[in-house]
């Protein structure tokens, strides 16, 4: 559980957000219901998914590996749609949980 935004000590009179926090504080990847998985064997490291990702949640590392930052990926599926070699597959988070457990 994260700390409540307002406490007795700082409770204001208006619901204005004074400390937005940004993406460092809010891991929006929790909203995701489907998760993109990259098939390393098929991936050509072309970087199209990196360019198309609306959340900048896909990065190309120094080693040239394409990596998905799951803390921020909201599961929109644009990467799957754009990948020219069909190396990205959207997998249900529920199914993912089952395989993990």
């Amino acid at each position, binding site marked *: 559980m994260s700390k409540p935004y307002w406490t007795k000590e700082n409770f204001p*009179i208006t*619901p204005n957000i004074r400390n937005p926090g940004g993406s460092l504080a809010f891991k929006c990847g929790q909203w995701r219901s489907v998760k993109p998985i990259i098939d390393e064997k098929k991936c050509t490291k072309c970087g199209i998914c990196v360019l198309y990702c609306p959340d900048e949640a896909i990065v190309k590392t120094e080693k040239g590996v394409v990596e998905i930052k799951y803390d921020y990926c909201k599961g929109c599926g644009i990467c799957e749609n754009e990948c020219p070699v069909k190396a990205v597959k959207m997998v249900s988070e529920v199914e993912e949980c089952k395989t993990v457990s």
Partner: protein
Amino acid sequence: MQNRKLMSGNRAIAEAVKLSEVNVVSAYPITPQTSIVEYLSEFIARGELNAEFLQAESEFGAMSACIGASSVGARVFTATCSQGLALMHELNYVAAGLRLPIVMAVTNRQLSQPLGMWCDHSDAMGERDSGWMQIYVESCQEAFDTVIQAFKIAENRDILLPTMVCLDGFILSHTSEPVDIPNQKAVREFLPSYKPDADYHTLLDVKKPLAAGGGCPPAFTMEFDFKKYEAQEKGREVLRKVDEEFGEVFGRQYGPVEAYRCDDADVILVAMGTMVGTAKDVADKLRKEKGWNVGVLKLRSYRPFPKEEVIKATSGSKAVAVVNRAISYGIGAPVFSDVAAALSNAKEKPFLLNAIAGMGGRDVDQKGLSAVFEKAMKVAETGKLEGDVEWIGLNRNLVGG
């Protein structure tokens, strides 16, 4: 210190706004409010008032502009009524929730349908639960004085709520009376410039960034509602203090209520706005001609509702008649409900009569109010209350009954 001039209620409002040295006026014209903003635009064009005038594309736009201007720390005024106030409805809650001390004059006018431009209180009653404070005035002088008081009340740190000054459309907005206008220096001393606090409510300041108007989860919403409720409760005391201070400086004082000849009264008539003057005359007449002990309780502050004052003024009376210039369909009328709520836990409970009068500009005359007093007197004497709502001035030839 004061200069007496003959002017309409609307002119008195505009003169008070000028002396309050507002920074921004944003409005959309609507009868009978129009001349308030016409005067203000003239003052600004002539350089008599150093302010921005924003003619909006609608009342929705006008209130949006007021919220924006108040959010950057401007002292803001607007005026509207009727359909215009109804169109602002959504934003009125935003202004109250962001705790912006905007002052708005409402020249009370009926709501369509039937379409008409005449006086009743239906428009402002629709906003009574929005968090805005509401003060109803009786004379041009009171309209003038109340605008200046309203800024001081609204900008008080304990309040920070927008405030409506309600004056009866045409009956007061377009009636001319002598008004004492104090000088700029005296008003400035009474009402120093607005100093918003970025750490406390809403102020858009690049040095202290904040996001206003966003979502709020259920975990906090009720707490913000409570804060607004608390501010209205404190509003009673602030309103009284500001009014007293105004009285000391300018020699005129009104109070949250005016209890006219209520001390020994068996029957008290409760009313708001211009009909109070007529009611006082009728009370005087009935005392003189019939020897009845009757009084009038004028509600000046409607939100916050002066509960304690209503209990105090009506204690010892046998019957209280509430004359409403608005209807609450399916139950009765709003002011009646509020008076009844205020008296619900009082030790001494008088009989309560509910009267509806003056809808859509129907004259509230001496004859009509005499009938209310008479009916209430009968109840006081017999101890029996018959019927539900009294419709004053209703043409029974047309609707039967």
